[in-house]
């Protein structure tokens, strides 16, 4: 083997070794993707599919009724929950302070009678979802339970490629 061939072979193996090291590094290969946040409603709510802008309208209090007889009941996790972070970032596009100010202003303008109800745990969230007609909440898709309805957002369910809430 001539020296040039040796150099080429060495370069080739070096590339393979570095690629293997990079591909096997924990930051890339072992970091799990954060779970999608499912939009979940009480099972009797007459809706199965909402666009992201419709979800935003519901959360902003612009849409307050599913129909004439069924008001929307908004449930939102307490600060520090990941579900709340995703809802504020993707849907409201507000900081925590802006979110609080938004609801103070909304009630002050007589556009809503009360802010969203705060839920402090997943158990409490599902308890309220099953008990309150018209309720809507945002749940980590890994923690789903029976007895509620998961909505499609922009035609996608949690876990699908283009699902927007993650």
């Amino acid at each position: 083997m001539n020296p040039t061939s040796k150099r080429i072979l060495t370069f080739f193996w070096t590339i393979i070794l570095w690629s293997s090291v990079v591909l096997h590094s924990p930051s890339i290969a072992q970091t799990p993707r954060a779970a999608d946040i499912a939009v979940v409603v009480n099972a009797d709510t007459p809706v199965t599919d909402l666009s992201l802008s419709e979800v935003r309208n519901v959360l902003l209090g612009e849409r307050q009724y599913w129909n004439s007889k069924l008001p929307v009941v908004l449930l939102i996790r307490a600060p520090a929950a990941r579900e709340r972070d995703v809802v504020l970032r993707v849907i409201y596009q507000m900081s925590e302070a802006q979110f609080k100010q938004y609801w103070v202003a909304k009630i002050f303008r007589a556009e809503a009678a009360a802010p969203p109800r705060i839920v402090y745990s997943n158990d409490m969230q599902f308890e309220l979802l099953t008990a309150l007609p018209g309720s809507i909440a945002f749940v980590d898709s890994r923690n789903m339970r029976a007895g509620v309805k998961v909505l499609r957002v922009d035609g996608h369910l949690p876990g699908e490629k283009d699902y927007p809430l993650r």
Partner: protein
Amino acid sequence: MRRRVPVLAMMFFAISPAWAQSPPPPDQAEQIRILLERVEQLEKRVAEMETKPAAAAGVTVQAANVAAVAKPEMAQATPPPGSAHQHETAEQQTASGQMEVHYPSLQIRGFGDVDFSATDQKGTTSGFNLGQLDLHLASALSRKVTYFGEMTFNAQPTGYTVEVERSIIRYDYNDFFKLSFGRYHTPIGYWNTAFHHGAWLQTTISRPDMVRIGGTFIPVHFVGFLAEGNIPSGGAGLSYSAGVGNGRGSIISRPGDAGDNNNNRAWVANLYSRPVRLYGLQMGISVYRDKLTLPVVTPTGNEFREWISAAHIAWTKENPEFLAEFANVNHKNILTNAITNNQAYYVQIGYRLPWFEKTLKPYYRFEHTHTPLSEQVFTNQDLVESILGLRYDITNYASFKSEYRNTKRLLTEPRVNGVFFQTDFTF
């Protein structure tokens, strides 16, 4: 032998993923089990912290605090006996509390401000003054009926006056039709119904002159009924409000709270759009029609037709914030048919700076009001004003504002320069 080394290395890296994904040996499984138990304990502790009253009061729990909770020494701390049971009981109580709906469910919120002003206008003095103390009431009377009220306490040289700013009872049929009766802020333009008397809600210290409290350019208040709701319009996001009421009273800055001063009702219609694709944008138009009966009869009569047409555009996100509003007030003397047109507009721009935890927001507003010399209903309201200011949000519920204003009223009067400070809050 030398050729085998790279081959072996490649095999090692090719096999390693399979090795990484294969079931862990028994000692690792035990470690994972212990770690999962720790995670479970941590989750319980986080849930306990979330159920604390501080969280209920809306105190922001920063991500850093969550990280602190996750410290190993805290995770290893043995929970006190019976804490899991206590946690479950507290959670059930909170959940059942959230499920119960009481009517009426009164909520009270207050707004207040303290101000300081100093100008170079002759004959004025600098000093502090107590702004409006504003109480807002919201109470659901049933699933579809809600009461809203707003009262202000205003400092006067001889004491305080109390004013009922709004008192509204509203029946919601659905999102497309809500009917209410009472005393409102007239839905003309944007500012008058966006910020009401809550100084903390608005970026600047004061309202624009055209919607000034106690001002006359547009009728700030309205007594009557109002229908409002969304209009099915897809991405246009249209909404409306339309109402009939008493209109301006004998004192034209006030509505006819205790009764109209003529047999003509005023009406107002407001149409606005919040486009779906441009979240944060609002555009709208308003019209208002009334017949004014002034208390003083002059040779040219005391009755006028009033037409107000207004338009607004608002970009409510704060990077940047942009508000602009225009109104034309047309008066027609019923006896002489003499017509006058008064115009006012403002443009306001602000920007929430990305530094200092986004607490700073510089802003600028330009205002212009024109009343013709032939105007018979209004006294002269001519104004050209520039306001340059800075808002600092001390907390989520209080701010400090400082402004420089340059104001010119009449052509014959000099420009007035002034500095203004305000701290405002909600509670």
